[in-house]
C-alpha cells in the first residue's frame, strides 16, 4: 500500500511538471510535493531559450539521395550559423532555430504527406523546400493550403511558379532564364563576329518541364531575333536514353552551327560521348547547366573541354562571399561545394532573413516580408535574392567554360568578378 502511494504521488508529480511545460526532470524523492516540482519547472522554462521550428522534407534515400544530403548539409550549416550567433532576432527577441528534416525517399506522394505532417503535427513556423523539380512540385500545394511560407532551392522548372502560389518562393533561377541567357550570350559573340549570322541552331531537349522551358526560350529568341538565330532542328528525347545515335545523326544531317541540349547528368554523359564518337563538330556546344560538374568531367575527361554551361553557382567564383562560403564548407564537410550546397545554404539564409524582417512568427507576415525582400550579401551571381510577384527568383546564372586540366573560366555576364572572354568558336568545332 505504501509503495502504491509513493508510486501514485511520483506519477502525479510527473504530470504536474509536464503541465507546467518545464524541462526540469521530475523529482525522484518519494513523496515530493507537486508545488515544489511546479516551481522548479517554472524556473527552468524561464532559462530555456525560445525556439522556432523550421521543417524540410528531402530525399535522403532513393535516387536523389546524394543531392538530398547536400541540401540537408546546406540547411544545417545556415541554421548552425544563426544559432551559434545567439539565435534569430524576431521582433527584438532571440530564437534558437530547431530544424526538422524528414526523408521522403525520393517519392512525391510521401514528400507531400510529410510536409503536411510538419505543418499539422510538428507545427513548424516555416518550410524549406525539397530537391528536384518533381518533389518540389509534389510539395508546393501545402504552403498555400496552410498559409505556411516555403522557400525552395531545388526546383528549376518555371511551371512551379505558374500555379498561383502565394506562399512559395524559389531561389533557383528557372531553366527558361537559362535558355534566354544562353541566347544573349550567343548574340554577344555573333555581334563580335566570332559566330556566323544568322546562327543556325540544332536544339535537343529532355522531354520534361525542365527541357520544355529551355526549348521554349530558344524558340522565343529565334522568333524575336530572326536575323540572329535560325532553329534548323528541334527534337525532344526521353530521359535515360540508351542510344542517341539516331538523334545525333539527325543533328549531323541538320548541319547547324550550334548544338544546344538540355539534359540531366546521365544523358549528358551518354549523349556527349556518342557525339564525340560520331565525330560531330559545332562552333558552339552547350548542354544547359551540365559541363563543369565533377562527375561529368570525370566521365568525359578531355571530351568535356571547352563546353559552355550556365550554372547557378560555381566554386570558381572569385568574389569574397563565394570564397568565404567555399572555405567554410570545406572546414565543415571536408569537400569542395557545388551549386547544390550553395543554393540550399542561401535558401535557408533568405528564409531566416524573411522571418527576421517580418518581426513575427505569423505565416502571412513572413510571407509578405519574403515577397518584398531584397536579400543582399548573397553568394549567388549578382549578390542579391529577390522574388517576382509569383515567387519566381530574380537570380541570375553565371556561365562557365571548361578548359583543359580540369579548369573553369567564368565567361558571362561580362560584369561578373573574374570574367574572362570565352574561347569562341570552340576549338573542336573548327
Amino acid at each position, binding site marked *: 500500500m505504501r509503495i502504491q502511494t509513493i508510486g501514485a504521488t511520483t506519477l502525479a508529480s510527473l504530470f504536474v511538471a509536464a503541465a507546467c511545460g518545464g524541462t526540469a526532470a521530475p523529482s525522484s524523492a518519494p513523496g515530493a510535493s507537486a508545488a515544489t516540482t511546479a516551481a522548479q519547472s517554472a524556473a527552468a522554462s524561464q532559462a530555456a531559450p525560445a525556439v522556432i521550428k523550421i521543417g524540410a522534407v528531402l530525399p535522403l534515400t532513393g535516387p536523389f539521395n*546524394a543531392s538530398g544530403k547536400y541540401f540537408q548539409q546546406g540547411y544545417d550549416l545556415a541554421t548552425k550559423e544563426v544559432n551559434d550567433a545567439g539565435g534569430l532576432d524576431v521582433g527584438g527577441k532571440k530564437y534558437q532555430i530547431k530544424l526538422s528534416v524528414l526523408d521522403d525517399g525520393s517519392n512525391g506522394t510521401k514528400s507531400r504527406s510529410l510536409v503536411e505532417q510538419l505543418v499539422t503535427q510538428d507545427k513548424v513556423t516555416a518550410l524549406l523546400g525539397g530537391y528536384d523539380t518533381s518533389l518540389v512540385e509534389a510539395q508546393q500545394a501545402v504552403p498555400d493550403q496552410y498559409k505556411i511560407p516555403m522557400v525552395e532551392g531545388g526546383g528549376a522548372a518555371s511551371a512551379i511558379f505558374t500555379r498561383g502560389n502565394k506562399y512559395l518562393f524559389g531561389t533557383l533561377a528557372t531553366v527558361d532564364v537559362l535558355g534566354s541567357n544562353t541566347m544573349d550570350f550567343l548574340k554577344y559573340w555573333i555581334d563580335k563576329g566570332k559566330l556566323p549570322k544568322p546562327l543556325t541552331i540544332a536544339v535537343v531537349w529532355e*522531354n520534361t518541364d525542365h527541357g520544355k522551358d529551355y526549348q521554349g526560350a530558344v524558340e522565343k529568341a529565334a522568333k524575336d531575333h530572326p536575323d540572329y538565330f535560325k532553329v534548323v532542328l528541334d527534337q525532344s528525347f526521353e530521359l535515360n536514353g540508351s542510344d542517341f545515335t539516331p538523334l545525333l545523326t*539527325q543533328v549531323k544531317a541538320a548541319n547547324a552551327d550550334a548544338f544546344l541540349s538540355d539534359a540531366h547528368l546521365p544523358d549528358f554523359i551518354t549523349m556527349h560521348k556518342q557525339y564525340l564518337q560520331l565525330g560531330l563538330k559545332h562552333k558552339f556546344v552547350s548542354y544547359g547547366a551540365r559541363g563543369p560538374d565533377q562527375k561529368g568531367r570525370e566521365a568525359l575527361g578531355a571530351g568535356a573541354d571547352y563546353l559552355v554551361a550556365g550554372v547557378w553557382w560555381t566554386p570558381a567564383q572569385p568574389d569574397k562571399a563565394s570564397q568565404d562560403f567555399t572555405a567554410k564548407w570545406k572546414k565543415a564537410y571536408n569537400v569542395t561545394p557545388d551549386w547544390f550546397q550553395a543554393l540550399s545554404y542561401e535558401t535557408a539564409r533568405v528564409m531566416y532573413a524573411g522571418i527576421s524582417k517580418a518581426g513575427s512568427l505569423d505565416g502571412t507576415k513572413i510571407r509578405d516580408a519574403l515577397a518584398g525582400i531584397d536579400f543582399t550579401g548573397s553568394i549567388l551571381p549578382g549578390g542579391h535574392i529577390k522574388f517576382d510577384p509569383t515567387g519566381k527568383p530574380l537570380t541570375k546564372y553565371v556561365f562557365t567554360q571548361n578548359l583543359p586540366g580540369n579548369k573553369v573560366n567564368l565567361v558571362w555576364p561580362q560584369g561578373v568578378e573574374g570574367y574572362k572572354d570565352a574561347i569562341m568558336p570552340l576549338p573542336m568545332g573548327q
Partner: protein
Amino acid sequence: MFDLNNLATLAVSALLTGGLYATMSYGLALVYGVMKIINLAHAATMMLAAFTVLTLFRAFHLDPIIGSVVILPLFLVAGMALYRVAVGRVAAVPIASLLLLFGVWLVAQNAAYLIWGSEDQSILTSYTYSTISLFGVRVAVTRIIPFVLSLVMLGALRWFLGSTDLGRAIRAVSQDKTAARLAGIHAEQTAMIAFGIGTMLSAFAGGLLTLIFSFTPDFGGTFQLKSFAIIVLGGLESFPGVLAGSLVLSSAESFSILIPGWRASLVNLLAFGLLVATLVVFPGGLASLAVHRARKTAE
C-alpha cells in the same frame, strides 16, 4: 536532309545496338526458357555487375571488358544460391516468383544506394573515344565490342545447349520437367544451374554496359523492359530469336527518326508497341513465324 552517309550511320547504329540489346537479353531468355518465370531481378543483376566492374576498375585498374569476365564465376554462384535459397521454392507458382524477384530487385537497389551512393558513376578508358571506319561510317570501339560479343555468346550458347550433356539436360527440363526426371535428369539441380548461367549472362551484359553508359543503382530498369519486349518478339525460348528481335527493335528505333514529325522522345513507345503487337498478332514471336514458314515450305 539525310544523305547516304547518314543513312549508313543509322543502319550501322541499328546493327550495333541490336547486338547490345541481344547481349542484355540472353540471360532473361534462358531463365524464362527453363523455368517459365520472368526474372525481374535481371535489372538488379546488370546493375550490381556494373558496380562490381567499377569497383575492380578503381581498385585494380582492371579494364571493364576483363572485369566483366572476371566477375562471371561470382554471379554464377550467386544466381545458383538465389535459386537454391529462394526462387526454387516458389518457381512452381508464377506470381510468387515474380513478387520474389521484384523484391530481390528492390533489396539490391537499396543495398547499392547504401554501398555506392546515388551519384552517377562511369568508367573512362583509353579507348572510350576510339573509333574505326565501318562501311564508311565512323563507329565507336565501345559499341563494336558488345556486338561482337553478342555473336560469340550466341555461338557459345548454341554449342553449349546442343553439344554438352548439361546443355541437353537444360533443354530437356525446359521442354518437359516431368519427362526429364523420368529420363534420369536431376531437374531441380539443372534448373538451379540454368538460373545461375542466366544470372551470369545478365552480369556479363551489365559489365559491358559500363563501356557506354553512366549508371546509378536505378540502372537497368529501362533495359529490362526492352529485354522483355525482345524475348517476346523473338520467341520466348529461342536465342537466334532474341538476336532477331533485338535487330528488329533497334532498327525500328534507329530508322523511326526518318518519319516526318517523329519525336525521338517516343522511342520507348516503339518497344512497348512492338511487344503488344507481337502478343496480339503472333504470340510465338519471330522464331515461331520462322518455324511455321519452314514447315509450310517442307509441305
